[in-house]
């Protein structure tokens, strides 16, 4: 426990160090990255220890905060989230060393590294806090530090817009959390988690709604997600990896922590979470399918995965409310496992997308192509991560979803008390999985396969050494978790004990053995086919040909199957939801001249929900402009009226 606090201290110290070394970008980067890696190694010791030998450790600092106390608690639930935080921030720091190098001299790298480490420290604080005051301090620091990183390239107008949306989303989320904590604290008068009296009835539901809104804004529940597809592409890639991999999971952690505090949940909470999860997962992957920017696509895929996690939590809550232990344990367990898995594979994907952006100068899918030959390592890592993201065995993405599937399938029998929600989850998960394969086939195919489409893709280089090391580490973790999932069951069971009885999850360990065995068989099969192929093709000269020549006699690179063409049948089908802006040429003659075609993915929720609502609020506000007239005397009069009203009210 003390070591976890020490690691947060190291993060803050190295943040200060890289800030003070800002003049010399190389030294600042070294200080920042070294701090992140050392802190991660130190922090992992207590985290792994708690996961292997479940216990609850508490540290209370004597310094008193306004209305709160500085109490930190490390329990298995926090440790499950701390694990990816430490691993991913260390990997991202290594990656950032190479990634930020070209920005030296142009951007304040000292500040960037300071903010990066501050973000990590804030996440550690959020996960360890057992009191609302340090929790909110960590929460706000996290939002502020990540905002600074999002607007690192603030000369681009799109980045500034993303920053503004992110700031507003973060602020409103924190507002809900403040309200939630004051509701929780109102009966006992103390803001320490341990002193919260278990609320009942309407108060409990109000707390839950505030938690869904406040934490959902961070986690990216649809329709609270609008900052995510803007901020993730705007941030530097290693920061996107951390934001998407672990920072949005702080919302999931908060929700789970509140569920622990609330105790016995109501049934409709589970329904609400299942619906939010199903909508986020399916709509998230559909919008991912429609995107034209690699990082934006990955951001939408993060929304999809948060949806999957939320469905798992929803099943857990429902299982708790209807006292179905197997549903509760497998739902929560699957959700937590997917939290870890998503952190690793999405980190890997954002890093390989960053390598593409770094090398080719663009992440625009329609402009890229044929990078497999120039960037074999990056391409391998991207396809590896994609396979994990599509929940394909033998990689890790499969394991978490498998637990959720298992929980749902156990409960669809005719005598089951939760057949309908289980069916909804199964169908949503299946649809999401299929659409994810399409989305990642589109992304990987248009970036790495075929021929280079534009000049910008002509002279790219593969990722730097540190970038490769970071990606290789994450890819290895994806494979290890995919193969060794039975070993994770015990720590997961420890983490869910405050929420549900854990024996059904321990029983599921047997099923996970089958998963591992199947994965090993699959790997053996792939190796056999590979060996057979090598044996058969031995001595034969390799033939070089065009990829995708589509039957043309003299194809050019521009005639390749494009990203939007690849997904057009699917996106057209879902056009009522996706609302893409499209213009097709109308071909009326036998020999048509030059024609152009365009399709644009639009921010549907922003345009159709938030923008009108914002305009309405603005109109309402403008009605009261007569209050702000520029006359000093009347401003003083307002103050006098407010003071007198307060005085009279208190009498």
């Amino acid at each position, binding site marked *: 426990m003390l070591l976890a606090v020490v690691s947060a201290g190291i993060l803050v110290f190295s943040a200060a160090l890289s800030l003070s070394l800002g003049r010399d970008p190389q030294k600042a980067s070294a200080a920042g990255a070294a701090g992140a890696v050392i802190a991660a190694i130190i922090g992992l010791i207590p985290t792994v220890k708690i996961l292997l030998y479940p216990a609850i450790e508490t540290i209370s600092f004597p310094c008193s905060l306004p209305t709160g106390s500085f109490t930190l608690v490390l329990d298995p639930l926090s440790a499950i989230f701390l694990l990816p935080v430490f691993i991913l921030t260390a990997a991202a720091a290594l990656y950032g060393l190479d990634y930020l190098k070209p920005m030296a001299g142009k951007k304040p790298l000292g500040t960037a590294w300071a903010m990066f480490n501050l973000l990590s420290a804030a996440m550690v604080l959020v996960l360890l806090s057992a009191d609302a005051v340090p929790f909110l301090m960590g929460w706000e620091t996290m939002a502020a530090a990540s905002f600074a990183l999002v607007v690192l390239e603030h000369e681009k107008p799109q980045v500034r817009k993303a920053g503004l949306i992110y700031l507003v989303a973060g602020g409103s989320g924190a507002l809900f959390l403040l309200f939630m904590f004051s509701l929780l604290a109102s009966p006992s008068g103390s803001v320490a988690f341990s002193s919260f009296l278990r609320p009942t009835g309407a108060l409990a539901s109000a707390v839950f709604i505030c938690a869904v809104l406040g934490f959902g804004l961070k986690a990216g529940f649809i329709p609270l997600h609008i900052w995510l597809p803007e901020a993730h592409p705007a941030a530097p890639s290693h920061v996107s990896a951390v934001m998407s991999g672990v920072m949005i999971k702080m919302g999931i952690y908060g929700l789970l922590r509140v569920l622990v505090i609330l105790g016995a949940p109501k049934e409709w909470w589970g329904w609400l979470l299942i619906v939010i999860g199903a909508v986020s997962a399916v709509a998230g992957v559909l919008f991912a399918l429609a995107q034209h920017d690699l990082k934006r696509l990955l951001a939408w895929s993060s929304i999809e995965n948060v949806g999957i996690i939320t469905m798992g939590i929803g099943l857990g809550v429902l299982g708790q409310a209807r006292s179905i232990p197997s549903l509760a344990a497998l739902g929560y367990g699957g959700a937590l496992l997917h939290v870890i898995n998503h952190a690793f594979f999405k980190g890997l994907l954002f890093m390989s997308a960053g390598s593409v952006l770094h090398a080719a100068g663009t992440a625009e899918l329609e402009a890229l192509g044929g990078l497999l030959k120039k960037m074999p390592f990056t391409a391998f890592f991207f396809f590896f991560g994609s396979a994990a993201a599509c929940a394909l065995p033998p990689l890790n993405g499969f394991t978490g979803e498998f637990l959720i599937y298992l929980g749902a399938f156990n409960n669809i029998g005719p005598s089951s008390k939760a057949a309908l929600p289980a069916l909804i989850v199964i169908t949503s998960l299946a649809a999401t999985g299929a659409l994810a394969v399409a989305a990642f086939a589109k992304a990987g195919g248009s970036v790495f396969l075929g021929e280079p489409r534009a000049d910008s893709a002509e002279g790219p280089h593969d990722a730097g050494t540190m970038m490769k090391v970071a990606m290789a580490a994450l890819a290895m973790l994806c494979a290890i978790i995919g193969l060794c999932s039975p070993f994770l069951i015990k720590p997961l069971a420890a983490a869910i004990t405050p929420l549900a009885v854990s024996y059904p999850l321990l029983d599921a360990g047997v099923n996970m053995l089958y998963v591992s065995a199947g994965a090993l068989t699959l790997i053996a099969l792939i190796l056999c086919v590979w060996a057979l192929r090598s044996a058969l093709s031995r001595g034969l000269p390799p033939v070089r040909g065009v990829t995708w020549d589509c039957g043309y006699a003299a194809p050019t690179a521009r005639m390749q199957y494009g990203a939007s063409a690849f997904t057009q049948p699917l996106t057209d089908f879902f056009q009522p939801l996706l609302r893409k802006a499209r213009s097709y040429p109308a071909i009326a003659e036998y020999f048509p001249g030059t024609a152009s075609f365009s399709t644009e993915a639009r921010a549907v929720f922003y345009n159709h929900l938030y923008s009108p609502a914002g305009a309405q609020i603005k109109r309402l506000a403008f009605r009261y402009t007569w209050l702000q007239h520029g006359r000093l*005397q009347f401003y*003083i009069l307002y103050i006098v009226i407010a003071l007198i009203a307060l005085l009279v009210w208190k009498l």
Partner: protein
Amino acid sequence: MTTLAELIIVAVILLNLSLAASGSLATCIRLAAAQGVIAALLPLLAGHGVPSGTIVFCCAVILLKGAIFPWLLTRARVKANVSRDAEPVIGYPASIILCLGAFAASSWLGTRLPLPETARVAWIVPASLSTIFTGFLLLTTRGKAITQVLGYLVIENGIYIFGLALFVEQPLMVEMAILLDVFVAVFVMGITIFHISREFDHIDTAELSQLGDWYPKQSGGEK
């Protein structure tokens, strides 16, 4: 001795009314100064066995409020070429009625406020509250920048009396109020009014609103 203190309280209340009714800037300055001076006499009368520190303190306050501030304000009025009129936004009868209303409200408030039993002089709390309200009245209904400063001074007089009612034994808070007083008088009036009148040839705050970040519709262009 208490009788004398009560006489002073009555005088303070009457001065409030005259401040609300007076139309000449010079008179207003003198009235505010007079109020400050007689309020400064209060700690010398309220208790028995006045320590020498309090006497020095009162002399300093009397010097500041009775001599230095009126002199500075008059100098500002003359140098900035301000017309004699106080230019109230509302009429004098309305000002007087508001002032009387403020006094009535303060009397009610004085009975309702949960105050410690230190107030030995009758009416001291209502008088102080009504002085504060009169200061606010000057602030909100008079157009000139100088009357704004005067308003602050009158509010300060009220706070001073209120402080005396509660904290006769601990003059720290009262001294803090004096510091605020000096800040307002020297900084706001001395620097700001001179600069503004030099730049814009007037110190009417209604005209100065053009400088705000909010542009009324007639200025056009900007929203």
